[in-house]
């Protein structure tokens, strides 16, 4: 189901924490809400979940307003804090389905299915509050996905779990979302997560949407400095104006746009050499082929960035 925000304004402590004039998430897509800490990402999810009331504007899921309409909620939310009631994982999932009005006869099957897909089939009878962080996140996801809600909201689904568990879950999540979720909004402050999990991107800073659209489009035309830097570009000053250089986008030699790099030091990384230096005041780095003779500190090198994007 489509999710639409129209002129939504949320205040907290006398200060606007979310100010969105128009934003929509199309049915069937996965959108990453991406931005630094405190940008209002979680607030956006809470508004869509109907947990927070905007002081102005409205949020529509399909054609219903979750914050105002009585009736069954349409969004399933997996909180970043991985909250559980006391008791087993099964009891937690059972309660969720029961509160959503799923008939008793269907619950066991739905629980078994979601648990198996999320890889926690053998943890169903364990106390939910005693799971490891990775297991708890899977249980948290399984509980939300088992609802098969028209809109699924995931708040930082990969934060605070150990590296191996995170890598595995990052691999499995797209398939899980394709199986259980229709429209998905996921909040993340991690660029890699945003690009690996989502097809659309909303860049949020200080409660305002700085960019939104299909991820490749947003990536290829960041539009302004803040978005470019969040997306991992290095912003450099060129004689024609600002340019955004993508990661590993600097190469030795003449070209356009060209810069002069002052070398500082070189680190041998085994399979390549890592040159660290400065272009003007900005610290940059550049990959050199394995056995190149490292330039001495202070050497001035000509570099160019063929894949860079001009910024207005």
């Amino acid at each position, binding site marked *: 189901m489509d999710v639409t925000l129209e002129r939504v304004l949320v205040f907290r402590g006398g200060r606007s924490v979310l100010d969105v004039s128009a934003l929509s998430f199309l049915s069937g897509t996965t959108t990453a809400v991406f931005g630094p800490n405190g940008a209002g990402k979680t607030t956006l999810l809470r508004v869509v979940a109907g947990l927070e009331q905007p002081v102005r504007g409205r949020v529509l899921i399909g054609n219903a307003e979750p914050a105002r309409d009585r009736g069954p909620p349409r*969004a399933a939310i997996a909180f970043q*804090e991985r909250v559980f009631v006391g008791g087993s994982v099964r009891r937690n999932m059972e309660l969720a389905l029961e*509160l959503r009005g799923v008939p008793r006869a269907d619950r066991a099957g739905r629980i078994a299915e979601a648990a198996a897909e999320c890889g926690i089939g053998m943890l169903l009878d364990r106390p939910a509050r005693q799971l490891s962080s990775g297991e708890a996140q899977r249980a948290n996801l399984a509980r939300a996905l088992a609802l098969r809600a028209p809109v699924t909201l995931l708040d930082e689904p990969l934060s605070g779990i150990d590296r191996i568990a995170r890598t595995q879950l990052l691999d499995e999540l797209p398939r899980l979302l394709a199986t259980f979720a229709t429209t998905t909004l996921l909040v993340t402050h991690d660029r890699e997560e945003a690009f690996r999990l989502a097809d659309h991107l909303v860049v949020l800073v200080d409660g305002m949407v700085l960019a939104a659209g299909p991820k490749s489009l947003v990536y290829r035309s960041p539009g302004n400095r803040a978005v470019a830097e969040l997306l991992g570009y290095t912003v450099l000053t060129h004689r024609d104006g600002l340019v955004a250089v993508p990661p590993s986008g600097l190469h030795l030699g003449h070209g356009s746009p060209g810069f002069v790099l002052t070398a500082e030091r070189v680190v041998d990384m085994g399979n390549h050499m890592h040159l660290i230096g400065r272009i003007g005041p900005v610290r940059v780095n550049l990959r050199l082929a394995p056995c190149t003779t490292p330039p001495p500190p202070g050497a001035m090198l000509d570099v160019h960035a063929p894949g860079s994007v001009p910024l207005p």
Partner: protein
Amino acid sequence: MSDLAQGFAEALRLLGRGDAELWSIVLRTLAISGAATLLAMVAGVPLGYALARGRFHGRTFLLALVNTGMGMPPVVVGLVVWLLLTRSGPFGGLDLIYTRRAMVLAQFLIATPLVIGFTAASVQALPPQLPDLLISLGANRLRTLWILSREAKLGLLAAVMAGFGAIVSEVGASMTVGGNLRGSTRVLTTAIVTETSRGNLPVALALGLVLLLLAFLVNLVLTALQQRRAR
């Protein structure tokens, strides 16, 4: 030592004989303190919840007030209730002084801060996002409160035990506002005071043992409820 042994024997004798007056005192004690505890729960649990969850001005001040109330001397509460209910007092017209209702009121005032304090502490120990989780799943207000109470069961039953324990064993307020009228407002604690002052030490001790037994049985039931494992 002989007094103790005598008291114990007397207690068994009184209980075994099924002494009618003793039983009526026991039942009256249970009824008055039970009613006061129940009312304290009805008033104290929502207030404790609000204090724990609320974000309003003066919340810390109120919590400190409640925590002070948890240690309020019963005799002071009794005195205040007496001043309010006495014939010449502002509520003298209600004709409540020296009745069981007056005792329930005084005991209610003693137990409520305890219930509020224990409730607030146990609700604050729950994960702060739990209410949001339940609301997002579609639980209405009543259902949310019910599930949260079940989650805070340990603390809430501790609140019942603390409240009941405090008032079933207090004597100052019951004596002051109830008057220890035989057959009407005499409860176990006031009966103990009476027998002690008359020099009937074995009987006083026997009543003390009965009081302890009563408190133990009530707490046994509550503890069993509290410790029952969640499925």
